[in-house]
């Protein structure tokens, strides 16, 4: 059971890889936003290791921001900044759902038909 844990020792402070930046448009990027590597971006020569790692992990499948955070052992906030950089540079595309009602926290984007598909899908598991 993983619950609150202390900071593990790191050789590099996490936000070093973002150049110290902590927020940008990326702070709205959902945890479950899917990252897709765009054609022609595959090798990522000259990019820092974290960016190359993201391109590698997302090379053959969509990978969520939260998954990249877990796979790279980097905090979500750091991954958001790096992914936003990669998207700006046209290495990746970020897929998010339609705009959501932030205030209620409950998505207006969830249509009844989408929920029905999810319900049927879970029932068939």
């Amino acid at each position, binding site marked *: 059971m993983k619950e609150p844990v202390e900071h593990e020792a790191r050789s590099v402070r996490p936000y070093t890889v973002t150049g110290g930046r902590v927020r940008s448009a990326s702070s709205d990027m959902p945890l479950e936003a899917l990252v897709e590597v765009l054609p022609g971006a595959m090798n990522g020569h000259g990019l820092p290791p974290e960016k190359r790692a993201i391109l590698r992990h997302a090379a053959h*499948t969509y990978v969520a921001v939260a998954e990249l955070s877990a796979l790279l052992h980097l905090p979500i906030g750091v991954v958001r900044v790096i992914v936003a950089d990669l998207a700006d540079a046209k290495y990746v595309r970020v897929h998010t759902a339609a705009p959501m009602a932030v205030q209620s926290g409950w998505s207006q984007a969830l249509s009844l038909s989408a929920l029905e598909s999810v319900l049927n899908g879970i029932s068939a598991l």
Partner: protein
Amino acid sequence: MAYQPSDTAVTASPPPSARVAPTVVKIVVAGGFAVGKTTFIGSISDIEPLSTEAAMTEHSLGVDDAGGRSDRKTTTTVAMDFGRIALPGAFWLYLFGTPGQDRFLFMWDDMVRGAIGAVVLVDTDRLDQCFPAIDYFESRRIPFVVGVNCFDGVAKHALEDVREALTISPQVPVLYTDARSRAATKQTLIQLVRLAMERLHGA
């Protein structure tokens, strides 16, 4: 069954650009320390539950696990576990689990944004641990169900007693679950999606 044509189904790894991105949906799994959130997620996830952390330098208020009060500014990290289930019709369902202590609630806004709803897992021996989660979802009108986790398959309390102790409205489903059982987890998720659909109908 609302299956989509097979050409849009999630299949093994063609190049991403060759197909449509899956529609991502998520459900939050909340509850107190060691109540079985990760087990619940792992019982149904396609992938081994992954864990990541949100680094926090927020002020921490409230009671810590050691029973002492702490209101100084601290740096800590919160583990967040999650799993993923591919569903027909190119839907990917993510399950996000996180601790339910008061001092971590601020990060829930991030997690619940766009969620179908939440499952609050309850251990009847430590009922008070789920209060912050229930308050949170009630105040934000997020659909949630209460799953009473039956450790070792034993139900120690009647569901109506649990409902009364939690003082939740009759509209909130309270059900027995078993975090280790895929079938029980499935039923719990089905209840939640049904509730979300009813809410959407009524909206």
